[in-house]
């Protein structure tokens, strides 16, 4: 009997597929269940945000950029404000900086909780999804209390924040943090030691350190590969240098480490918020220059922050006019999708799903 003739075939994963987190299309060349080649096709969610920004005033850009990465819209607000502030050299009041840090870190926790739920769901455990969303709801309620919005906040503005927090915010926030840190053991108990979970994630889709750096991978994915690099520490912005927190780092670079690292980060964020709530000073929440008619002087600047997915950046060019000359947004997921074909092959389709989930890709950030 001769060799059995086999044939590679192409599977179109997406644009509408439950585990591509939006509208990413992966053209997979498969040999049976094994993936031989991945070709990501993006652009299904391209909304020309950068072009629209060129025709809007600086303040109008902020609600637009909410849509750039809507899971952590606070950091989109913030990174653009940071760029504009650096350009115009605006001093932000102390209280506003504290509020910003509180909001950014709450948003990071919300995003990681969503990650926890969605990843578990992608690996086939349905229940953690609801657990993650349940605690995320507490945070979303806090945001709603502050700025009236649940997803696209438009809260952090150039030179400050849009409004002060209500009186009941601080007790509610402390309570939410207490609940979340209490529930962390639930999350870990459900998955961390589960033999099936370990089988599915340990040693799967290892992203080597060198490859990660070469392809501009950042954030938790980079840190799970053993590189201790966090912009909050390495290139401090806002008032992050005043807080005492650690940058968790893990060394295997597999799905399991990426998952654990995000749970570690939730703890660190809780630590930061607690310190910020303790030290929250009174005072203005807006600088005098924070006006709807804000104009930046000519110049250019690259502002980058660490959001829950990695490095988020805005390159802002201005010629002194009413509108920016060029706004280039940089999302971490862009690089995470880009690196996928280089380490995601030679594994089963189920591993690809786990891999894609733990990269925590969000498509609006890729397509913009």
């Amino acid at each position, binding site marked *: 009997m001769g060799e059995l003739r086999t044939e590679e075939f192409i599977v179109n994963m997406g644009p509408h597929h439950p585990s591509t987190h939006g509208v990413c299309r992966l053209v997979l060349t498969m040999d049976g269940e094994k993936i031989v080649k991945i070709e990501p096709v993006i652009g299904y969610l391209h909304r020309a945000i950068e072009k629209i920004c060129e025709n809007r005033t600086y303040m109008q850009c902020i609600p637009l950029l909410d849509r750039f990465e809507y899971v952590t819209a606070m950091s989109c607000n913030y990174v653009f404000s940071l760029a504009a502030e650096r350009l115009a050299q605006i001093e932000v009041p102390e209280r506003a900086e504290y509020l910003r840090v509180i909001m950014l870190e709450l948003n990071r926790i919300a995003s990681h909780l969503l990650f926890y739920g969605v990843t578990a769901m992608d690996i086939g455990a349905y229940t953690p999804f609801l657990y993650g969303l349940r605690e995320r709801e507490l945070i979303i309620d806090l945001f709603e209390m502050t700025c009236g919005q649940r997803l696209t906040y438009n809260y952090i503005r150039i030179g400050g924040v849009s409004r002060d927090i209500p009186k009941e915010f601080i007790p509610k926030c402390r309570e939410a943090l207490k609940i979340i840190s209490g529930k962390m053991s639930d999350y870990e108990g459900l998955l961390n030691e589960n033999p099936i979970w370990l089988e599915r994630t340990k040693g799967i889709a290892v992203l080597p350190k060198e490859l990660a750096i070469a392809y501009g991978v950042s954030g938790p994915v980079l840190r799970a590969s053993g590189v201790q690099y966090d912009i909050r520490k*390495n290139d401090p912005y806002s008032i992050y240098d005043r807080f005492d927190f650690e940058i968790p780092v893990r060394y295997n670079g597999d799905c399991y480490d990426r998952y654990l690292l995000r749970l570690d980060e939730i703890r660190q964020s809780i630590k930061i918020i607690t310190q910020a709530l303790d030290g929250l000073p009174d005072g203005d929440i807006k600088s005098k220059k924070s006006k709807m008619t804000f104009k930046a002087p000519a110049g250019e600047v690259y502002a980058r922050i660490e959001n829950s997915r990695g490095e988020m950046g805005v390159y802002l060019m201005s010629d002194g006019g009413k509108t920016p000359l060029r706004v280039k947004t940089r999302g971490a997921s862009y690089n995470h999708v880009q690196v996928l074909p280089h380490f995601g092959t030679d594994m089963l389709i189920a591993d690809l799903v786990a891999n894609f989930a733990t990269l925590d890709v969000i498509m609006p950030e890729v397509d913009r």
Partner: protein
Amino acid sequence: MTKEELAAYIQEKYGEKLTPLESGRYDLLYEVSKDNLLDVAQSLKDDENLQFDFLCNLLGADTKEHFEVIYNIASIYKNLRLDLKVILPYDAAEIESVQKIWPAANWYEREMWEMYGIEVKNHNDLKLLLLPDDWDQGFPMRKDWDAPDFVRLPEVD
């Protein structure tokens, strides 16, 4: 290495190839000529004291006078940041790919190519990234591309 030290170091070592620009705020911004780009990029990456191995961002821009290509690079191990700028006149809009130095440039260069029409030489996979496959409406991010009511309708048989 602080920013001042970095500026001094670069002035000393790469002084003739990199010209500091006044327009840059916060981080250092240098202009580099198109021909020197690959050279400088490679030596910035290989330099023991700098190790610029991380490409944060790469963008094209249209300033209404000329094109600009800007590289935001960082060093993970030495914790440094630097911006490089290449100025391209409209009639000679082409640039070498830096893919070999920073593989991450791949998609950024594709995006720049489709949005601005800046030709990227020696790129291994130059095809449309964000735009639809049958795009024939020019280069949308150029300042002279103006279509306020632009709506792309689906084709109906």
